[in-house]
């Protein structure tokens, strides 16, 4: 006699949700419509656990939801004041470690980092501003790389390798010296095989990789985060779809 296997469940903030073998806590949460804040997770791309925004408490221990496999009976805390305050501190660090001047950035209103800061109620940077000196690469005719805004999420690196079948980007260096590099002998984007229709050219959650000549296309009121909150599930695909990659 065969019996139906008991559905496996995890419990997030008191709500039991099912998961399938191989799913991470993030996968299961998203499938169940539960938002866990995240900046470096993108459905279908191998998670890497870089931003730490998705940190949840699993049976009392902090773990990144995007890289931790779901396991039966996990008691998970997600939307708590403590975790959201820690996430806000992480977001403040991301702002202070780069040069994020929202009023002069083409990504403003369409920027997941900015929307995350809105979501967490960030009013100021809290930490000393670093104003780092970083290279801008404007060599490519249609794609701009402004490292001032890069948060080293590595989504472009992974999207290029896993989805575009190329290998345009890499992260070089460690810790505060880490930087996004282009895998060409000149180090310039113009010498790479990146194209504006590549996922790597559209996936950046900040204004570091931009399609040229489309800045400020959507007026205030019609930008993604004028119309949506970052906590809406499944927004990633819409954000990428809205990036204009050719002259329309």
């Amino acid at each position, binding site marked *: 006699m065969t019996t139906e296997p008991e559905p496996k469940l995890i419990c997030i903030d008191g709500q039991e949700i099912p998961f399938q073998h191989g799913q991470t806590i993030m996968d299961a949460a998203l499938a169940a419509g539960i938002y866990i804040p995240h900046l470096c997770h993108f459905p279908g791309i191998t998670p890497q656990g870089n931003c730490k925004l998705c940190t949840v408490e699993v049976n009392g221990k902090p773990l990144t939801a995007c890289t931790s496999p779901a396991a039966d009976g996990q008691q998970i805390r997600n939307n708590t004041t403590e975790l959201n305050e820690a996430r806000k501190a992480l977001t403040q660090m991301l702002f202070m470690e780069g040069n994020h001047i929202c009023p*002069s950035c083409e990504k403003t209103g369409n920027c997941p980092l900015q929307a995350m800061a809105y979501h967490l109620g960030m009013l100021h940077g809290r930490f000393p501003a670093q*104003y780092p000196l970083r290279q801008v690469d404007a060599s490519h005719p249609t794609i701009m790389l402004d490292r001032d805004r890069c948060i080293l999420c590595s989504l472009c690196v992974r999207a290029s390798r896993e989805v575009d079948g190329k290998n345009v980007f890499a992260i070089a260096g460690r810790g505060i010296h880490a930087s996004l590099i282009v895998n060409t002998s000149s180090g310039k984007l113009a010498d790479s095989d990146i194209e504006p229709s590549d996922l790597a050219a559209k996936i950046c959650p900040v204004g570091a990789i931009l399609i040229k000549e489309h800045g400020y296309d959507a007026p205030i009121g019609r930008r993604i985060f004028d119309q949506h909150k970052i906590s809406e599930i499944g927004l990633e695909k819409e954000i990428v779809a809205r990036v204009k990659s050719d002259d329309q």
Partner: protein
Amino acid sequence: MTNKPKLKLATTSLAGCFGCHMSFLDMDERLVELLEQIEFDRSPFTDIKQLGPCDIGLIEGGVCNAENVHVLRTFREHCRILVAVGACAINGGVPAMRNHYSLQECLEEVYLNSPDTVNPHIPNDPELPLLLDKVYPVHEVVKIDYFLPGCPPTGDAFYSLLKDLIGGREPQVEKGRLRYD
């Protein structure tokens, strides 16, 4: 009407564009109502130059020169509650884009090398406040009590900040209304 003494409000613009002050005026007719409960001290709106003891100080703009430091410290000394208003006060904003370059490079670009310069020389009148090496957020120079983001914050945002402060409440920026641009 009560006879409660009016709260004293001072405002200033450091390394900013006066956009926050313009937006303050966007409160329009609500200013009339507010003026029942507050009165201006030193501010570009009044042209009062000497700062007296104040309840609320609003700081627009970041800190880019020695005079900004002086004004900001004077505001801190005289204001019970100091609020950083707008993107530039909070993180340096657009003026902080000069932080990419050394001060020397900036001065040379503007006063010596730019193509339309007439009689190129770097201004050195002793009356001019000395520029700092970088543009700084105001909270790196003095303690700031509250922050009102936006470039500029809307008239509505100013109104709700002032209503909260007049009512003796912690100012709250509603999450749905938070904007950095």
